[in-house]
């Protein structure tokens, strides 16, 4: 909802101000405001962060979090393991229905829209991934997955360490799209941006009647020197409003005839595509998508939440790559989830909390196919898929090969095992 505009204001426009570009004006205001604030009136320490102009990103990683713990065995089906069928008499997917079936795995039939990516070798699935030690609490597992720094009590996410690897920092380097609450992976000392929508990145009151730019000037004064998270949010916002304009200048219509399905995931991916096309330096984009917590109603191929959500997921991702056009050449999507689900189905056509899961990789640098080491399922009441690949090994391949980061910095104390699903080309 946006506010209707005020009636006409009274001050005459000031030629010097309007001659300056808005960006130039705000940079001047920021520096001048800070100096005035500290020396003249208040004497508090300067806590302004001076942001450099954003640089274009040569590679972009999109982290798609499938919230609620998706059932990886429904997405990437281990049809070669007979226990999969005996443990799930009602909800297992028949082998004959699977897409791109090899001797052991096949994809959920609703993933048809992704077949062009798969067939061109730009989509991979890594199975039996996850945290080394089972953790079946959504909330603490999510925290553990997204901090990715076991043993440390500092609340700093792996993506925050990633974007803080070089100075100067810029809040548009990592952007959460679709929700304004940042994921734990982005939490930390390096500021990042979140968007509910592209158009929401604006300063109310800085409109055509504010000819003397009183609004940004007074807000800079109000929030300069304010310590704590709100002060940081305010200054991040002022910078983002200014530097995000190239994204707002791009067309809101999806590119290349892309057609997204309805839903929040599509809206987020479309906003992500626009952000990438606007090229304001975002190298990390995070999107939360859920709820994949299928204790009940996961269902079959004919009904239920899994088939509907998988269909939406596949169509939205396919549209995203179409929408990107030539920019797709630098974009890699990776999916994560807090844990996988139980092997055996429950009374409600659903699955309770389990352990191992599947991760999907799509786009630039991906070497297509199935990856992962399988431990045979047992099918007892509390059997889980065993984790054989630490999820950090998969993420490490993306951040080192695509973004040129050091795995040791992003995943402290962890030595990644080669997975082989990502190239640096």
């Amino acid at each position, binding site marked *: 909802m946006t506010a209707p505009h005020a009636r006409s204001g009274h001050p005459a426009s000031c030629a010097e101000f309007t001659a300056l570009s808005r960006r130039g004006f705000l940079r001047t205001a920021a520096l001048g405001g800070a100096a005035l604030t500290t020396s003249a009136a208040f004497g508090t320490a300067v806590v302004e962060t001076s942001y450099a102009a954003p640089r274009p990103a040569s590679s972009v990683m999109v982290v798609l979090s499938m919230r609620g713990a998706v059932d990886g065995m429904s997405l990437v089906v281990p049809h070669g393991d007979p226990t999969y069928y005996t443990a799930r008499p009602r909800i297992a997917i028949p082998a004959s229905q699977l897409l791109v079936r090899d001797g052991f795995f096949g994809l959920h039939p609703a993933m048809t829209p992704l077949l062009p990516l798969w067939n061109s070798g730009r989509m991979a699935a890594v199975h039996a991934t996850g945290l080394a030690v089972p953790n079946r609490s959504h*909330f603490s597992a999510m925290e553990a997955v997204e901090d990715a720094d076991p043993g440390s009590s500092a609340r700093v996410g792996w993506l925050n360490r990633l974007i803080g690897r070089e100075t100067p920092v810029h809040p548009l380097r990592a952007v959460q799209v679709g929700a304004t609450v940042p994921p734990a992976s982005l939490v930390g000392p390096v500021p990042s941006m979140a968007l509910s929508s592209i158009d*929401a990145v604006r300063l109310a009151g800085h409109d055509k009647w504010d000819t003397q730019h009183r609004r940004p000037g007074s807000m800079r004064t109000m929030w300069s020197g304010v310590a704590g998270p*709100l002060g940081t949010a305010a200054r991040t916002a002022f910078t983002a409003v200014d530097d995000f304009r190239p994204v707002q200048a791009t067309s809101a219509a999806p590119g290349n005839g892309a057609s997204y399905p309805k839903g929040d995931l599509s809206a987020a991916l479309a906003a992500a595509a626009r952000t990438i096309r606007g090229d304001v330096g975002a190298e990390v984009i995070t999107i939360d998508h859920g709820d994949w917590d299928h204790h009940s109603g996961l269902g079959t191929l004919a009904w239920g939440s899994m088939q509907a959500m998988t269909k939406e997921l596949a169509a939205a991702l396919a549209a995203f790559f179409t929408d990107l056009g030539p920019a797709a050449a630098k974009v890699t999507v990776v999916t994560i989830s807090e844990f996988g689900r139980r092997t055996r189905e429950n009374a409600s056509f659903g699955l309770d909390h389990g352990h191992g899961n599947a991760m999907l990789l799509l786009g630039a640098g991906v070497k297509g196919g199935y990856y992962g080491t399988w431990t045979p399922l047992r099918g007892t009441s509390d059997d889980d898929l065993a984790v054989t690949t630490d999820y950090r090994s998969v993420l490490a391949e993306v951040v080192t090969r695509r973004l040129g980061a050091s795995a040791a910095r992003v995943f402290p104390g962890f030595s990644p095992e080669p997975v082989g699903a990502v190239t640096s080309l």
Partner: protein
Amino acid sequence: MTALKPAVPSAATLHALSRFSYGWTPTLGREITKAGGFGRWFDAQLAAGSDDAFTRTSATWWTSVNASPAVLWRRHESEVEPLWQADANYQRWVLARRIHSPLQVREVMTELWEHHFHVTSEGSGTALFRADYGRQIRARALGRFADLLHTAITHPAMGVYLDNASSTAKAPNENLGRELLELHTVGVGAYTEADVKDSARILTGYRVDTWNTWKVSYDRDSHAVGRVRVLDFTDANSSTDGRPTTRRYLDHLARHPRTAEMVARKLATRFVVDAPPAALVRRLAGVYLAHDTAIVPVLRALLASPEFKAARGKKVRTPTDDVVATYRALGVRITRPRHDESAANAILWQCGSLGSQPFAWPRPDGLPDQASAWATAPRFLASLDAHYSMCGGWWPKKNATYRTPASWLPLTAKRRSVRFDQLVDHLSRTLTGRPAGRKLQRVARQATGCRPAERISRTHPLVKWNMHRLLTVFLDSPTHMSR
């Protein structure tokens, strides 16, 4: 108010009010004075029971708030009112209460427990039971945690939300059994997977005939009988009626030291600081156990603690708190909604634009109450947008009474104009309960172009055209956006 310098409370009182009310108003200030200080006002709030005229009246603004599940389902099926709207109407009623109910402490505590025993408003089957669920929690919000726990866990809203309504002895659904331990009582790390399984078995039997008749029943045939053990609770659980076992189990959990710590931390996080000191949590947990899970003694201990006194302005207002406090600060009166665009309805979209509608948090852990979730750049910009729009009285506009720009001036028959700096101080006292400091004066000058000694009368261009640009300064401040 025509006083040039309206009286403001002490910083300590303002701090306590910022935590135990939904925001300063001059009326609240007068209530405190009349009661004889914050302490006595707080006592009166606790003694007031749960009924008040505004709550009674506003409950009739939306049919769905008082309708039975059967009626709500019929209305959904006949496309009179889809489930999401029943949820939305309950959310709206709650927001209206937070703005206008005189029982501010009860509303604050109701919100806290509705987040602790969170049932997401998502326009699903829980919508049929959601208003009753909230009412039951509100009635017990200042009582004993043991009663709250039993009410929440056995309520059909919770049963439908966390799948207990379809759990059976043969293949128990573990969702509620697990979250009961992790989120509502002892917390992660205190229990094993075997505990989760028995927790789920104890809770079998509380059924709802979902997506059919929605009839609520206790079904002895679905109850898993046989000895159970969860943590240090054991029970023969030999009867097909598992309800007495459930009661014993929940009473046991409510009195568990880990639960005491969980509850103490929740209260301290809401009312003191984002990461409350361990010593404070320990002390409050001790009070909780010593008073057999009664909540009020814990609140009193919290209010008396040095940690509370040291925590002024340390919390960031959540989106809903910001919106509600903005209505209160601007003195906007909302009345019975007549249209979708009526303020009492549109307020929900306002909250959404800031990033969070009441009870719409998508996970069972309830709304986060830490700055890291809400002190974000987009939330900041969205708050400024909502403040600006309301300071101008542009939206929401229908069935709401805004003050006129001129009414903000402290004028009398003798005093036909005020100096700009005096006006800024007057507005600061009225809108935020405190005098204007030098920085605020400077920001107000910058925002309006007015000089300190400029005389402001009814016909001044500021009042005629730009009063919203001055009013929003107070709401766009760290003071208004914190609590």
